[in-house]
């Protein structure tokens, strides 16, 4: 027994407890910061619900969801004619769907075929060049796409329409949809690429063994096996298209037309949110509150798509691991 033994232990003791309480503080700090993400969701749902409930006190929910006329200008005077404010959101929903549908028609084939080529055909060096280029497309700010759609593509389409003899609106759904399609292409291609790469090589080898060509193998074996992952990617892309704001604010119109003609101008949920809330306005008018109701619908729809997509992707990933 050396005398220094117990002594050093007694010196170490208090610092040890100090350290322990310090570590507790750190742990609680970490827990608190991970709560911020949860609180953000609570804040989003809370603020959207709170303002929407105010809105639905003035405008019945059914009028909002099924009404066919959208003109949110409320009357300045009581006796004013024709601006009582109509909050039927159906034209906005159809407009959003039309533009998103055009975007998906562009993005799904391009994204999927690009992913197939990169995963199955391209040499390593080609892949190393092409993939970053596609990632650049994903990294370009949406305001740049919007600028391109509104000031470059829309005039071209208009000119082409004039040359071909039919009228294309300068704020056509087509211009916004085409550019949006290119914007979400990298999302589909990278998630499809992951899904295709996750298909075990043995399945391909089996197919080659019975004499199938490469494209037959891809079509009949690889794609069906990768389908859930691809679907997940497509759903995520659809959610992105529905929630996209800047492209449609700049390239699509404000007129709430109920139409399925891609050459006409339509408006979307996000465009209306931006127009209703930018500039000065009193906060509790039905016009302003309607933006939050639209926001709530947007949030719920994208949430459902995201949960579905993430679940499919996750389940699928576990399948081959």
């Amino acid at each position: 027994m050396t005398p220094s033994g117990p002594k050093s232990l007694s010196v170490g003791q208090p610092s040890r407890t100090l350290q322990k309480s310090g570590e507790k503080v750190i742990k609680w700090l970490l827990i608190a910061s991970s709560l911020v993400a949860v609180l953000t969701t609570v804040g989003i749902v809370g603020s959207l619900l709170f303002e929407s409930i105010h809105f639905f006190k003035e405008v019945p929910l059914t009028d909002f969801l099924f009404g066919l006329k959208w003109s949110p200008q409320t009357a300045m005077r009581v006796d004013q004619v024709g601006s009582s404010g109509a909050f039927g959101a159906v034209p906005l929903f159809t407009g959003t769907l039309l533009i998103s549908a055009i975007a998906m028609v562009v993005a799904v084939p391009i994204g999927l075929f690009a992913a197939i080529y990169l995963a199955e055909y391209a040499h390593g060096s080609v892949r190393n060049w092409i993939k970053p280029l596609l990632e650049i497309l994903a990294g370009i700010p949406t305001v740049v796409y919007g600028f391109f759609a509104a000031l470059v593509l829309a005039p071209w389409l208009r000119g082409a329409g004039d040359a071909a003899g039919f009228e294309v609106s300068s704020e056509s759904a087509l211009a916004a949809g085409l550019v949006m399609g290119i914007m979400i292409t990298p999302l589909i291609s990278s998630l499809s690429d992951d899904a295709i790469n996750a298909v075990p090589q043995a399945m391909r080898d089996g197919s080659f063994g019975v004499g199938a060509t490469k494209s037959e193998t891809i079509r009949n074996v690889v794609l069906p096996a990768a389908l859930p992952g691809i679907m997940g990617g497509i759903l995520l892309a659809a959610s992105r298209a529905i929630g996209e704001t800047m492209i449609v604010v700049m390239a699509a119109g404000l007129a709430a037309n109920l139409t399925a003609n891609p050459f006409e101008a339509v408006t979307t949920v996000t465009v209306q949110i931006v127009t209703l809330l930018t500039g000065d306005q009193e906060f509790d008018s039905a016009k302003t509150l309607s933006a939050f109701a639209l926001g709530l619908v947007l949030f719920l729809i994208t949430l459902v798509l995201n949960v579905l997509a993430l679940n499919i992707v996750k389940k699928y990933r576990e399948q081959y691991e």
Partner: protein
Amino acid sequence: MNNQSTNSERIQAGLKKRYRAEKRFQYYGITAIAIAIAFLLVMFAAIGIRGVGAFQQTHIALTVTLDEAHVQDNDWQGIVKDGMRNAFPEVTSRRDKKLLYMVMSSGAGFDLQTLVKETPSLVGQTKTVWLPSSDDIDMLMKGSIDRTVAADDRRVSDKEIAWVDQFIAKDAIELHFNKRFFTGGDSREPELAGILGAIMGSFYSLMVCFILSFPLGIMSAMYLEEFAAKNKWTDLVEVNINNLAAVPSIVYGLLGMALFLNMFILPRSAPLVGGMVLALMTLPTIIIAARAALRAVPPSIREAALGIGASPVQTVLHHVMPLALPGMLTGTILGMARALGETAPLLMIGMVAFIVDVPTGIMDPATALPVQIFLWADSPERAFSERTSAAIIVLLVFLITMNISATLLRKMFERRW
């Protein structure tokens, strides 16, 4: 036997078709990639061609007399007008004089003001100075306004063109580097508009965003990856974070408006609020990247640290964190790059106002670079369209720099365990 030969014949006959299908399938893939890359190139080319002109601005060498009377009255534009009248003594009618003044930028006087401020001894002297022209003359010099178009259909009259031609004959009109574009705030006059105000607004917003989201992000990631027990609660947090990463950015704008502006009564248009909204938006991205970085650190590091007596907190802070930090930083830079390009939530919290002054802090009203692009894209003047493209080029340069530095960081610290 007979049956077999027909079978192989049938296969032989079909083979050509199948190989053609194979080729076709490959071409579909190549075409898809070609379309995507062609779009990228066309977009960059369209923006580049439009925007590159804005880095230069037409200047006119004008002989002006910095007489004391005007200097005393602070009427700098008056000096410019006098100079124009002296250069074209034949112009006498009121209307023509007005047109003549419009050849020069309405901000040309400011240049004289700064000149005199720098060298006060110039007062009373006559001097030839290069001063900016108006945006229409600028467009004419750059060829964006076509001289051959009928006079009624173009923004520059025949008289103005004649004056410009006189300057050209004297070699007194030149394209100079557009310094103002990089040093000025917004303006209603395209030739005076600059992006410094927007850049500073973006800078302050990103600073707030980084200060909030980086520590919060890595701390949540540390908790979730290293300390949290695997239970329903942490599952919920994880699902929640993954979903937040996919929520449309405009919804964050609505949150910022309802929460920060209306409940906390924070100032509208301030980079502080913009940064807070961007921080909430980037947080999930940073958490996901930071968790991936922590997961990439092999368990043997933790086991070794715990084995020699480190506490769990010490293990994480002293041993795991330093190894995961480069990965976390890479993810954070990419998140910041996304935040820099984000426009929609900033529109919601009022960072969309017309602001001339360059902001000097996080409470000053400001816009951001992408919002400035959005505002200019709406302006009808041809010269603003040029400046919009130039601002996009600047924004893309910032984004590319951030992305390259993130890639380099990853390459430099990448480890294979």
